[in-house]
């Protein structure tokens, strides 16, 4: 355990718990979304139940995200300020890694708003924005791995691995089920699904799992974001 984990304030723990739960719920939402896109029709549950669960878990994800963000901002240790909740890469604490989380939140908010207005937007525009949710998930995962002060704890690592496995399995299931056509889309999905685990593994091995990550996480920002 790092010193930071031990010294964290209750707010920090709340933020970590909220963030972790949000990641798990987001993972479930993505899996269910892929399942309904792939017309999964399990015998014991109705198709509409998958759709409803997808919607309800996505809303629950946002609830925990709100808890995660508010407690992180209120935590006196990191002095984040409210701007970082929507403006990516502007944080004083681990700007790059925190910024990925902000990007994920912004994407999910776009998905929320367009889903609420989907009747007015029409199916094409709604679905076009809805695809952003796929981008939000890896952003959230890397944000958790890079910012989380407990990434080195093995339960946390197992959790990340579980989330990764769940989404990868559903993506490959979906690709296996897909018919011909949309070749570019399927290629992009396959390449991304191959790349994400590799990049995450390499990143964890060279970054958060090495000693001195907290210093370097702050420094990456200096180089990339000209952190303040």
């Amino acid at each position, binding site marked *: 355990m790092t010193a930071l984990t031990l010294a964290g304030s209750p707010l920090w723990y709340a933020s970590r718990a909220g963030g972790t739960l949000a990641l798990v719920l987001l993972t479930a939402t993505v899996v269910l979304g892929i399942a309904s896109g792939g*017309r999964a029709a399990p015998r014991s549950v*109705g*198709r*509409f139940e998958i759709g*409803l669960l997808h919607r309800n878990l996505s809303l629950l994800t946002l609830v925990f995200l709100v808890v995660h963000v508010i407690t992180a901002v209120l935590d006196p240790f990191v002095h984040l300020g409210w701007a970082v909740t929507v403006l990516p890469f502007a944080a004083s604490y681990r700007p790059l890694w925190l910024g990925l989380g902000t990007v994920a939140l912004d994407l999910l908010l776009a998905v929320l708003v367009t889903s609420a207005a*989907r009747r007015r937007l029409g*199916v094409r525009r*709604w679905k076009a924005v809805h695809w952003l949710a796929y981008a939000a998930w890896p952003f959230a995962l890397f944000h958790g791995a890079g910012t989380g002060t407990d990434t080195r704890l093995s339960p946390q690592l197992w959790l990340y691995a579980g989330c990764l496995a769940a989404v990868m399995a559903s993506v490959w299931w979906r690709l296996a089920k897909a018919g011909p056509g949309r070749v570019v889309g399927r290629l992009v999905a396959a390449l991304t699904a191959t790349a994400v685990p590799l990049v995450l593994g390499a990143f964890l091995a060279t970054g958060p799992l090495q000693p001195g990550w907290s210093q370097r996480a702050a420094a990456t920002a200096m180089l990339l974001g000209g952190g303040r």
Partner: protein
Amino acid sequence: MNRTRTLRVDRIACTGEGLCAELLPELIGLDEWGYPIVRDRTVPERLRGHARRAVAACPRLALHTDA
């Protein structure tokens, strides 16, 4: 508020996902390819909530209720 509501399936948008028939079997059946057959277009008062839910559940936004 008591205008009768009628169901309408946008046949071009509908991809036969069949969710509507799961949620509103009283009014919607499925043909052998899984596409909806609206048995009764007028939505009775007692089924209004169910109709609304079926409309909201359609992933293609192909099911409509017209007032």
